[in-house]
Structure formats: structure tokens, C-alpha cells
């Protein structure tokens, strides 16, 4: 399989496609789903609407898990002990992203972060965004607190928390 092997392929240009010299067909998927949240996430979202963050404790390994789940995946046991967590914590990791979900560039970058919330077990992270900080000042170990939407605007969704900001 040397460099000299000629693999098939016809060279064309982007303009050939734009000018319709290369035919194509298009399809827009109509994909609609209504996911049942299940008991654990259902409660989690309800609590978010009320301005609180709730996790679940496993009676056997004693991990306090976020997001909450009805069974501990390591002990393989059902869990029933709900535990409220604080809405502040420490940044465990982050990055400074200039791309939106569709790969288009943003002028002001986002700061996706994994945050260890106070009250959850060490190592148990929560994914959200950090804001109100210059990207240059972001560091692991930063203490951050949730910035919530107004109670009237909250709907029971992850976006009820706007982002986390440094304290």
C-alpha cells in the first residue's frame, strides 16, 4: 500500500457543487422526540425550577451523585436518599471554546466547565458554563456560584441556571 498506489477519486472544486455541475439531493429530517425524564431527572428539573440543585446518595458506597439517578451504577443498587447540594463549587476543568454547536465561530468565547458542587462527592462533576470572567483569568480550582434566572422565568430546565460566576 505504497504512496504510488492510485486510489480512485475525481478531483472537483467547491464551485462545481455550488454551480450545480455536481448533482445532489437534500433532505431535512423531521425528528421529534418527547423524552420521558424519568423519576430522577424529573425531580432534578423540578428542583431547578425552585432554584435548588438536588442529588442522590447511594446507601452502599455513600457517593452523593449529580445528576441524580435512581440506581447507583457502580453498586448496582437502587437509591432513594435525595440530598440537596449547594449551588456553588470549584472548577475542576474548563476550556475556552470559540465554536458554536454548528462549528461557526463566536467572537466572545464560551467557557464550558466541569464544576464540583459543594455537597457532592469529590470527583463528581457537573457540566455547565462559567461566565462573567475574562478567559485569561480562568483557572482550575476557581470558586464559582450559580447565576439563576428569575423565578418567573425558570421552567424546570438546565438553562434555569444561566451560568456560574466567580466568587
Amino acid at each position: 500500500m505504497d504512496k504510488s498506489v492510485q486510489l480512485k477519486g475525481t478531483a472537483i472544486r467547491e464551485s462545481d457543487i455550488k454551480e450545480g455541475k455536481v448533482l445532489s439531493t437534500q433532505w431535512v429530517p423531521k425528528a421529534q422526540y418527547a423524552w420521558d425524564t424519568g423519576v430522577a431527572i424529573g425531580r432534578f428539573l423540578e428542583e431547578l425550577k425552585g432554584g435548588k440543585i438536588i442529588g442522590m446518595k447511594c446507601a452502599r458506597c455513600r457517593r452523593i451523585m449529580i445528576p441524580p439517578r435512581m440506581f447507583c451504577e457502580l453498586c448496582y443498587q437502587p437509591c432513594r436518599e435525595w440530598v440537596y447540594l449547594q449551588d456553588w463549587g470549584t472548577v475542576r476543568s474548563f476550556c475556552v471554546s470559540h465554536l458554536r454547536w454548528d462549528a461557526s465561530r463566536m467572537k466572545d468565547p464560551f467557557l464550558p466547565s466541569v464544576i464540583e458542587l459543594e455537597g457532592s462527592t469529590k470527583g463528581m462533576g457537573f457540566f455547565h458554563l462559567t461566565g462573567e470572567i475574562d478567559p485569561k483569568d480562568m483557572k482550575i480550582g476557581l470558586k464559582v456560584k450559580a447565576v439563576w434566572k428569575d423565578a418567573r422565568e425558570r421552567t424546570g430546565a438546565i438553562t434555569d441556571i444561566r451560568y456560574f460566576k466567580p466568587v
Partner: protein
Amino acid sequence: MLYEAASKAYQNAGLEPKDIDGFVNAGEDWTEGHSIADEITPDQLGAVKRPVFTVNGDAMQALISAAMHILTGQMNICLVASYSKASNIKSLANITVMAMDPVFNRPLEENPYFIAGLEMNRYLYETGTTREQCAQVVVKNKKNALWNPSAGHGISLSKEQVLDSPMISYPLSSLDISPHSDGAIVIILAAAERAKALCQKPIWIEGMGWCSDSPSLEKRAWGEAVYTQIAAEMAYKMAGISYPRKEIDLAEVSDEFSYKELQHLEALKLCRKGEAGFLVEEGALGISGELAVNPSGGCLGVGSLLDATGAQKVLEVALQLRGEAGQRQVPNAGVGLAQSWRGIPTTSGAVLILSNR
């Protein structure tokens, strides 16, 4: 749902997650609404940091893959998980359409049931089977489902009610079509020596076969289920079965659409071409008939579980062979056949022969 099903399976087998060597899932991204759906599989099975993979196909294909891995000798016990949550899919027809060729077929913007209508028409034409006989399949299966505690669509119907139901894609009427159900099924397989040590009544996989015919609408054989013929030959050969009609005691076959049960029975050589319609009419395929077909109620009675349907069929055959099928128990069941089909627009299916000998 999967946690519940898996917990029950573990209890039934007397095993824990750490006893399992490998895990296999069955599922497709678009029916989950989640790309790379393999991601969300391990936790509810107790499979975190264990060997896991997903077969994007029928649950029987996943089960067959697990069986093959055991046969290599590298693994001894495997768990196979599948489920359907059709209730969460608001646009199922639009998703099914995406399994069709984007250049030749999708632009026609037809509801995909037309494929079943076309096939049914050709099947009736080639075999002389009638719509009435197909309706009898619906009546039989939905009635069987009344005895099945897991079945959600059991009901007593008359043949006329089926024939009079609104036409969807002639000659397919709405009651000819299986409704959907949500459900999860977990099956645990073990290599021979371990199986004997674990279980009083292991149900043996005697034969496995699977096949895909052409995905293209333009190139497929419309009257016959060739994929089932080939899969069955492979399974019978492995099981050493020469006269299926004599040697099979019960069969769970795909009746996603009423006529499919008949077409599949013929492809399985459980009767001659064109004979299946007469058998159902005569009552020969009832629970205490000559050959019990779909004693569980089939897809028509239990509900179609998308790609998990194959697992439901294996589950029913296994329960029957264990003598645990309650009021729908087929008497003296020794050898059972489970056959699956992935539904429209596919021509893929699998066959498993199970026995309690």
C-alpha cells in the same frame, strides 16, 4: 426500564454484574433520539468499565453476536439488552422514511406503510392467500395476547372488524398493522459448562441464522421473504433439523403486519407456499393446534418493540420451553423457533432454534 429488566434477569439467573464477561446492546440512534447511542448503555446494566458494544440492528443479531463471542472461548457469560420507547418518538414515520434511499425513494414523500402494502399485494397474488386469512392472524394473535400478562394489545376481535378497519395502503388495513409498545428485555447467555452449573433448565441455542437481502426497493423479491429462507436454512443446518414441520413444536415469528406471519411461516418451510393461510383458517396455528404460532400474541398482540421485538420472541420461546408460560403454555414444548424481521423498509431477519433437551 432497562435497570428493571436487567435486575430481573440477574435475579432469574442468580448472577451479579461482576459475573458477566461481556454486554451487548441492540438499538439504533434515530429511534433513541441520541447519536452514538452506545454511550448511554452501560450504567443501567451494571456494565461500567466492562466490555460493551452495540449492534445497530435487531436484538437477535445482538444475541447472535454475544453467542459468537462465547463460542470463541474468550467469554463465558454475556448479557444482551434491548428496548423500545416508541412512545417517546413523536415522528416515527419520518424516522422510518430516513431508512429509505435518499435519491430514489424519499422524494416520493409517501408514508412508508406503502412498502408493506406493496408486499402484501404481491404476496396475496403469488400465493392465493386472502385478506380474510390475514385477518384471521390478527384475530388469533390478539386473542392469544389476552393470556399474556406482558401484552398490551390483547383483545377479542372478529375477522369482519379487521377487514372493515380503515384502509392504510391497500390491501393493508389499520388492524393489519401492529401497534407499538414500550418495553425492555434482557437475556443472559452462558457457555455450556457454566450454563449447566448455573441453571436447572438451561434453554439451549441449537441453531442460529441471519441474513440481509437487498435494501433496495427496486431490486428485492416482493412476494417471498428470501432473507428468512436463507436465515432458516442456516439455523436448521446448525441444529440438524431436516423436517422443520415435524421437529418444531412452537414458533414465534414476526407478524409486524398480519400477512408477514403467513409469509414467514412459508419461508421457514413450516408449511408449503400458499398453505399458511389455510392453516390459520383451520385453527391449526392456535396454542393447542398442530403448530402453535405466536402464542405470546406476537407483535399484533404484545405490540411491536422496534428492534427489541426479536428479543421478545426469544423470551417467549424460552418461557414456553421452561414450562413457565402460564395460561398460554403450549403442551409438551421441546423445540421452539424464534424468527425476527427488522420491519420496513428492511429485508433483514434472523432465526434461532431453541430447545430444552
